[in-house]
């Protein structure tokens, strides 16, 4: 029974993967066409003629209709060939393999910080709603959401990297190379990314907890004579876990997007800088490859979250 439940869930998700990936890559492919600039002119160099530019268009298939170009890319991608960058000649898979770990370390650290700081703040605020502590948490949360990530990143660099020199100002180190150095490099960018995450987690934790604590069954639990501590930690927190999972899933998606700016401030060779360079140069194989990877990450993560939902709350599957 349990096995078939998982396989059903997995099957349903896998059916979704294809259309989502195709739609996302198609939209991005179309958007890349709108970016100003002409790739063929960039590839032709300084000393060139119109004929040579036309030849370059032909060599790279840039003269073919839009749908044919997309179809060719898709067909190759389905067969596992993500092609090479038109600008650098590097294999798209290699580029992604080199950069994805750097981004994952930063985003992963940011998520851990968001949860570790956000949940206690939310709990603290919900214990006595309307208290000074609650007000303080609300102010922190509002600031976290309002402050732009790039600004916070620059302030963090100026303070903790330049003045106190506690953390490096830029770059990244692979986890496999030296995990301590890797985390030290990821600390400041992760903090910059986590600011809005902490805020969101704290607010959602607070409101979900308040809702649970004011529900009828909690009143019943109190009526049965259970101590507040037990009601709070055992019943309250367990019931907000589904909300927290949802917030977590949304945060991952958002942080993968927000990392673009933070990577630029900290000169981290990650997925963000890869896609920015590629998009400004109209290097569509790279843009598409990065897109596809991001879509895959989001889909796999959502799948994991779905599985966890059903584990935490069996009603989800029955619905």
């Amino acid at each position, binding site marked *: 029974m349990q096995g078939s439940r998982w396989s059903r869930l997995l099957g349903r998700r896998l059916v979704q993967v294809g259309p989502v990936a195709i739609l996302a890559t198609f939209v991005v492919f179309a958007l890349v066409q709108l970016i100003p600039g002409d790739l063929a002119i960039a590839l032709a160099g*300084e*000393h060139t*003629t119109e004929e040579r530019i036309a030849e370059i268009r032909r060599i790279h298939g840039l003269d073919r209709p839009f749908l044919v170009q997309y179809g060719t890319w898709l067909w190759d991608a389905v067969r596992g060939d993500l092609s090479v960058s038109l600008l650098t000649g590097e294999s798209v898979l*290699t580029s992604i393999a080199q950069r994805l770990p750097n981004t994952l370390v930063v985003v992963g650290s940011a998520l851990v910080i968001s949860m570790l700081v956000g949940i206690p703040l939310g709990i603290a605020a919900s214990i006595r709603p309307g208290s000074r502590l609650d007000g303080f948490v609300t102010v922190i949360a509002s600031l976290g959401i309002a402050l732009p990530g790039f600004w916070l990143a620059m302030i963090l660099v100026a303070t903790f990297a330049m003045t106190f020199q506690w953390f490096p100002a830029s770059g990244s180190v692979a986890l496999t190379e030296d995990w301590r150095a890797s985390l030290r490099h990821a600390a400041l960018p992760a903090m910059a990314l986590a600011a809005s995450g902490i805020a969101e987690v704290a607010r959602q934790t607070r409101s979900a907890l308040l809702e649970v604590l004011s529900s009828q069954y909690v009143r019943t639990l109190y009526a049965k004579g259970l101590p507040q501590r037990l009601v709070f930690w055992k019943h309250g927190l367990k019931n907000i876990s589904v909300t927290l999972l949802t917030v977590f899933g949304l945060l991952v998606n958002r942080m993968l997007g927000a990392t673009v700016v933070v990577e630029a401030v900290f*000169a981290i060779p990650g997925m963000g800088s890869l896609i920015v360079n590629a998009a*400004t140069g109209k290097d569509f194989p790279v843009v598409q490859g990065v897109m596809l990877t991001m879509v895959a990450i989001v889909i796999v993560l959502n799948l994991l979250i779905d599985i966890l939902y059903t584990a935490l709350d069996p009603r989800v599957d029955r619905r």
Partner: protein
Amino acid sequence: MSEKKMVDAGSRVALGRRQWISMVGGMAAAGSLGLASGDVLAQAPRRGGVLRIVAPLQPTSMDPYAGRHGNDHVYLFPAFDSLIDVDLDTLEPKPGLAQSWSFPDSTTLVLNLRPGVVFHDGTPCDAEAVRYNLERAKSHERSNVKIDMKSVDSIAVTGPSQVTLKLTKPDSVILMTLADRAGMMSSPTAIKAAGNEYGRVAVGAGPWRLVSWKDNEKLVYERHPQYWAKDVALLDGLEFSVIPEVNTGLRTVVAGQNDFVYGLAPQQKPIIERSGLQMVQGSTLATWQIYLNYSKPPFDNVKVRQAMHYALDRDEFSRLTTAGMAEPTTQTLPRGHWGYDKTLEGTYKHDPKRARELLAEAGYPNGIDVEVIGRNDQRSQQQAEVLIEQYRKSGIRLKFMNVPANELGAKFMGERIGNAAVSVYTGRVDPSQLYSIMFDKSSFINASRMEGAPGLEAAMEAARAVYDKEARRQAVWKIQRIVHEHALYVPLALQPELDAMSQRVKGFKPNLLGKPRFHGVWLAAS
């Protein structure tokens, strides 16, 4: 006469070198250097160490034929030797992989190759390898240097160490073509093995071989143990870190994380002076200039184009945008170059009144509106502000449309939008190449797609047809004067080179190309 002028040109550069040395010495005297200048000169070069270099960009390709950016050369020089080398002081040809050459007649070039040279993969760099490379330059679909090889009709192996090129017509530029990308020799074995991915691996016969290239991050080179020349590859290796932001780049050298950074902005000069690093500066071939589209009004009128020169205050432009570091110019060639024309000095002096008169004579008594395509980076926008203000005083109203650097060519030269464009032109070693690229009817850079002035094409042809040094100089001057008189473009100033390096780096010299070369550079013991 010819020899004397050459010496003149050389001594001017030598003076530049002396200035550079004395500058280093001066800094030492000021206490900012650890060593006195005499010590710098007295120390014997030593082998060993890895030079850590900061570069603003990574190469567009390590295949010399497929690359497309002037910055690539900094990465190509260590890995590739070219058939003809260039004297970096005068930009004249000197022996490279070809130890000698001759023109038995005006359409035949015989190259005698240096024997015993091998590529990094052990493949001999013999006549067959050279023929293979030149055929590839001439006809491979990925070759961006095809246009430079246009005058080569056939390439034949005429001896184990001899290659003979037949030209379709006399072409004295061919030597400089073979000193640039087209003459950089790759291992045929490596090209065949790598196919279209050759641009990532680069196997040449240069003093260092490329070991790894981590995209947008790092390129690592190590010494080619079988390199033919002594005392060139003194360094065990080179490590390029790609850091696009120049301030970050300089910071890493100040902090001792790297040894050398190039392509700095003039605004960083005070920081270098305070930091105790060695500063290197010089003029380059790269020029900031205003491109004009003279196929449509108002620039189809020569008087309007001349007004564009008179309205301009080049000294002020240099002072405001580069703190006076950039050399103002009315011709693209810097003073040290053999083709520099002294008679053009002092022409087109700032004269707003004359500019207004010329506009009125051309039928624009109320001035003109000019649509200019510019670049949207901060430095270019600052230049644009200065230009707008200067031209306004002569009734020339510039309206800038600022676009990303990679879009400027597409807009102004491709779609041929606007009347003018402001950008930097990286320049070419041979003036004939430079003028062909700028003014040839079929050249993409020539947005007008027409002959700019009567006799210009004939003059450009004539300059390619003569081989004698003095005759060439005269022919080049003729082109320059036509271009100058007809005001086909508006040169503003030569882009200055500004580099900074740690005290350990010795033996580095700036060059007119503005592209650092690390041949003969060494690291003092720390």
